[in-house]
């Protein structure tokens, strides 16, 4: 008797087709959408990237970090650094931002992995504070008040002229479109990459690590190594997103770039509301988050209060988030990770 092991479901095939159409629309978006829409979409996509990486850490790796702002800020500052001090072009400098975040992640992990669970969470936060305070000492980049990208660096940025000509828009709008396309590439690569990682043997072992480090050890999963891989991957991706976000903003300060609210609290809410431990969750979460923000942002602190309370309620009544509710009701999995076995019945050999 033969067995076939698949991770595909028919829903996921439909989703793949719908997804492909969606991607084409997203790529073409700047041809028919206004600048406001492009900026909103940029925000959604970059938050989605941050959320996917936090989800990889916490939802799959069991590593609840409250210090992701360290990598956003470090990526952004490294990008500003090489542009301002060495005259690099901002676009390729984004990659250096990712690398810088990766470099900071090594000592961070070294310290934070000495702490468990909740203490790991606060430990990452402390380190993010340390990085912020150190960067605020970096006087050539404006110290505590921050700085802007030089005008010629943004004007002569790669691809901007090309986009101006192609779409007939002004330089500022062209920069937004460039940032949007880069964010789209980053988001797709993130989702694809994480999906791929989770379907590898290693990735499947991740769940085992999250659920029980001791048990995972006993079946031969190197939990320590998986933690490192997940942590460094997340740092790199978060750094890229940070650099990209600040390339679009073109102005930076330590308090903004290392903000725990903007780069970690929001991200946690997105993942918790959408559904932790799934790829679909953060996608749904970021859409809900954006909708809430559009509706409630004028109410300032009421908005954040609502988010906080919503996260508490969801954690208590539906810990798998909105996507968890959806897939429970419908059995839908757009990114199936679990392998399903078909072709025969398994009988346990002995009891």
């Amino acid at each position, binding site marked *: 008797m033969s067995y076939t092991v698949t991770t595909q479901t028919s829903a996921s095939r439909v989703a793949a087709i719908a997804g492909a159409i969606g991607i084409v629309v997203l790529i073409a978006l700047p041809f028919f959408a206004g600048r406001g829409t492009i900026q909103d979409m940029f925000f959604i996509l970059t938050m989605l990237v941050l959320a996917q990486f936090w989800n990889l850490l*916490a939802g799959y790796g*069991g590593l*609840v970090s*409250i210090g992701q702002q360290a990598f956003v800020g470090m990526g952004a500052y490294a990008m500003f650094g090489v542009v301002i001090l060495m005259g690099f072009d901002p676009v390729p400098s984004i990659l250096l931002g990712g690398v810088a975040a990766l470099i900071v992640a090594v000592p961070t992990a070294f*310290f934070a992995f*000495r*702490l468990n*669970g*909740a*203490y790991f*969470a*606060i*430990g990452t*936060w*402390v*380190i993010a*504070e*340390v990085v912020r*305070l*150190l960067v*605020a*000492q970096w006087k050539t980049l404006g110290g505590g008040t921050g700085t802007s990208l030089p005008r010629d660096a943004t004007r002569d940025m790669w691809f901007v002229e090309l986009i101006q000509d192609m779409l007939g828009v002004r330089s500022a709008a062209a920069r937004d479109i460039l940032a949007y396309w880069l964010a789209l590439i980053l988001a797709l690569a993130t989702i694809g990459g994480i999906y791929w990682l989770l379907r590898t043997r290693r990735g499947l072992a991740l769940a085992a690590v999250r659920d029980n480090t001791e048990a995972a050890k006993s079946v031969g999963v190197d939990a320590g190594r998986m933690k490192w891989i997940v942590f460094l991957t997340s740092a790199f991706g978060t750094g890229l997103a940070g650099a990209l976000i600040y390339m679009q903003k073109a102005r930076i300060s330590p308090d903004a770039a290392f903000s*725990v*609210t903007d780069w970690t*609290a929001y991200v*946690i*809410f997105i993942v*918790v509301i959408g559904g*932790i431990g799934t790829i679909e969750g953060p996608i749904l979460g970021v859409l809900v988050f954006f909708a809430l923000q559009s509706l409630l942002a004028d109410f*300032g*602190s*009421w*908005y*954040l*209060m609502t*988010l*906080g*309370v*919503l*996260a*508490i309620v969801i*954690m*208590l009544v539906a*810990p798998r988030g909105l996507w968890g509710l959806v897939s429970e009701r419908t059995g839908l999995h757009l990114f199936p990770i679990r392998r399903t076995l078909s072709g025969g019945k398994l009988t346990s050999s002995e009891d």
Partner: protein
Amino acid sequence: MIWVDTLLQGILLGGLYALFASGLSLVFGIMRLVNLAHGDLIVMAAYLILVLVTLLGLSPFVAVLTAMPVMFGIGWGLQKFLLNRTLEDDILPPLLVTFGLSIALQNALLEGFSADSQRLPTNALTTASVDVGPIALGVMPLLTFASAVLVIVGLNQLFYRTELGRAFRATSDDATTASLMGIKPANIFATATGIALVIVTIAALYLGLRANFDPNIGPARLIYAFEAVIIGGLGSLWGTLLGGIIIGVAQTVGAAINPEWQILAGHVAFLIVLLVRPRGLFPRAND
């Protein structure tokens, strides 16, 4: 001589951090729960004292006595009806719920009291200082430090000399077996958080008397508290005091070298301890 002065100021500042940390340490020791809203609860208590002072015209020291039972009740209810529901093996729910609570609380305070910084009214006593040889020590820092020591002595008495303390330790060891002794773990946990918030109220008094506060400063207090707890070793109250002192001294020494380095120096001291003694200075045997 200036260095002796700096050192003494740092030690006294450590008393404040130990007060921030004791409640955190207590709750962690009993139910392995880290409350990420701890700092915001300190700030909330400071506002509660402020309201009592301004509305009823009480002295801050009387207001704090009034605030204590209120804060105990809030802690008890918070634990009983919210946090107890998160106490399972999974580490995500308690972290995410208390994080949500932290953000919600911060913004509720912002809504209620605006972002303006506030201060509890001081009087001649609280701004006075005593001369110890050539060094002048503020009465306020001395009171803070004495309160921290008193709180820790009191908690140790409670833990090791009373029936409730026995129940705390038993429940912390094994909640199921404790329930076979007639103990209600849910109530024990609620009581522990209630007591933690009473300590938080004491901490809030000194926070508000010594410096300005606003709704956003909670997370930083949480971080100092956390550092003190980790340096001391999880669950050791005297260790927590020492941890607070180490952070305090590092901060004042850092500030003496360059005012911008104050906070950074505290964090660096924490990281160094973490490097050389990952389990803190006085680790508990069975953790």
